[in-house]
């Protein structure tokens, strides 16, 4: 008969992995609501599409591996990946984008590397990059915020756009995404092209897609994500090292760029409140599996991401760089871990002799 002898300790902190993941999804809600407000029902649809694809893939892969799907699904990690991916996708991207992304994220990036806890790259970001590289036009066709559209999209129109590629009236995504006849770029995109054309920052910021501080809808969305992130910090689901290091580094780099009058330097506020900055700071780079382990290592990891983000945003070819930066930093994590081992008690003690 097997004994049920256990080893100490016999009590545990009540926080479980599924609870952690659950709180992450909950704290995404403010940002999600903001995004839905500005970009319509498409956000929800993308999230739902990605989630169902991800969960289905997770079940399938677990069965293929001969393990129980229930256990894997119970820890909510696939759900978090899918939600993040869904939020990153343009609201009216075709349905197959979300599905391909979801399947790729779970099957290839997570399960093929060994399942939960063993993946080297951030699954959501890797899937996003796959889509971005394979379908560049689709992925950059962000429909401008509803408020800027000539006519806002209705629910059925939105759904039809996603699932068929055309609205009831026969307009395609690209056509919808134009304001005054030309395709509206995302705020970051606008800044980049504007700066390269020699415009001054102030002039660019007068553009239609800009609001009080940064991009029109984007600033609110980012603030909403910031709120969610602070909630996460308060709940102690994540620790301060990663978000703070990332944001501080980004600020520092922004200031440096502005001080030295770099041609393509966007203002700091734009960096902070545009694109996926806040989403990345609190929800993407804090993915524990692919981040560094020790606190010092994590700060270096976050700073590295900030550096990559700044470089790519300023000089690179893509308007938003969080996804690429995260993947690049993921590659550096083993080395970061090796060089940032904590000091163990009793070794390399600095004695102050009294």
């Amino acid at each position, binding site marked *: 008969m097997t*004994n049920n*002898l256990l*080893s100490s300790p016999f009590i545990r902190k009540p926080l479980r992995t599924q609870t952690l993941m659950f709180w992450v999804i909950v704290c995404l809600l403010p940002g999600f609501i903001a995004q839905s407000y500005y970009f319509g029902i498409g956000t929800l649809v993308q999230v739902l599409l990605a989630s169902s694809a991800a969960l289905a893939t997770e079940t399938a892969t677990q069965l293929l591996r001969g393990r129980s799907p229930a256990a894997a699904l119970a820890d909510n990690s696939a759900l978090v990946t899918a939600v993040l991916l869904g939020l990153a996708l343009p609201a009216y991207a075709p349905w197959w984008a979300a599905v391909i992304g979801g399947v790729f994220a779970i099957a290839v990036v997570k399960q093929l590397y060994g399942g939960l806890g063993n993946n080297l790259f951030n699954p959501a970001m890797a899937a996003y990059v796959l889509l971005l590289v394979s379908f560049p036009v689709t992925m950059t066709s962000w429909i401008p915020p509803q408020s800027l559209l000539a006519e806002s999209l209705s629910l059925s129109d939105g759904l039809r756009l996603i699932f068929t590629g055309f609205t009831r009236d026969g307009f395609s995504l690209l056509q919808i995404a134009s304001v005054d006849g030309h395709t509206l770029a995302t705020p970051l995109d606008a800044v980049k092209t504007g700066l390269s054309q020699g415009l001054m920052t102030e002039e660019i910021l007068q553009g239609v897609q800009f609001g009080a501080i940064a991009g029109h809808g984007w600033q609110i969305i980012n603030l909403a994500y910031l709120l969610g992130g602070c909630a996460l910090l308060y709940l102690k689901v994540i620790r301060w090292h990663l978000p703070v290091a990332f944001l501080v580094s980004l600020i520092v780099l922004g200031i440096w760029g502005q001080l030295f009058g770099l041609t393509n330097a966007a203002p700091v506020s734009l960096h902070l409140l545009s694109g996926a900055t806040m989403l990345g700071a609190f929800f993407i780079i804090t993915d524990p599996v692919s981040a560094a382990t020790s606190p010092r290592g994590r700060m270096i990891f976050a700073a590295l991401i900030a550096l990559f983000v700044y470089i790519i945003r300023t000089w690179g070819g893509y308007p938003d760089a969080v996804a690429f930066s995260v993947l690049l930093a993921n590659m550096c994590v083993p080395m970061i871990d090796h060089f940032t081992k904590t000091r163990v008690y009793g070794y390399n003690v600095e004695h102050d002799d009294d």
Partner: protein
Amino acid sequence: MIEAIIALTVLAAIFGGILGFAAIRYRVEGDPIADQVEQLLPQTQCGQCGHPGCRPYAEAIAKGEAINKCPPGGQETVEKLADLLGVEVPELDASAQEKEKPKSVAFIHEEACIGCTKCIQACPVDAIVGANKQMHTIITKECTGCELCVAPCPTDCIEMRPIAQTSRTWDWQLNKIDIAVIDVASESAKLEEADNA
């Protein structure tokens, strides 16, 4: 075309010269690999690998002998050797696998010992105390479990006994403990009976 040939030839000559110089200037005497291999072997000097001791086997390995012949070392040693030599990890040799046993030490049953000293001569680490016509006994701490003493004994009085775990050497395998469930009520009743009896 000709410049390419000349350039490559010159490069080859330069690098060949460097390598040759290094081969002579930094030559290492002896075979350090044999020493490193010997460090990894368990030093039981039992001869089960076919060599008379661990050092000869280490030297043989340095010359290319198979590394999976050591039963006392087990698969762990094979893996360590493979790691050192940078080769693939072979499975422990079939004959060596049969001989893999839990670590034991020898024990002499003194009532059958006739004092012939044959086992003393056989022990490679001098772990048997005794003299001609005197009682022989094993120094348990020094015995490596190589079993070379078992065969020569004419009265078959040497037995190999596995070493038992103590609470200080326990391996923390919780699922291997048998639980003894004692019923307190019946136990104390029994003791009371014994008292009253």
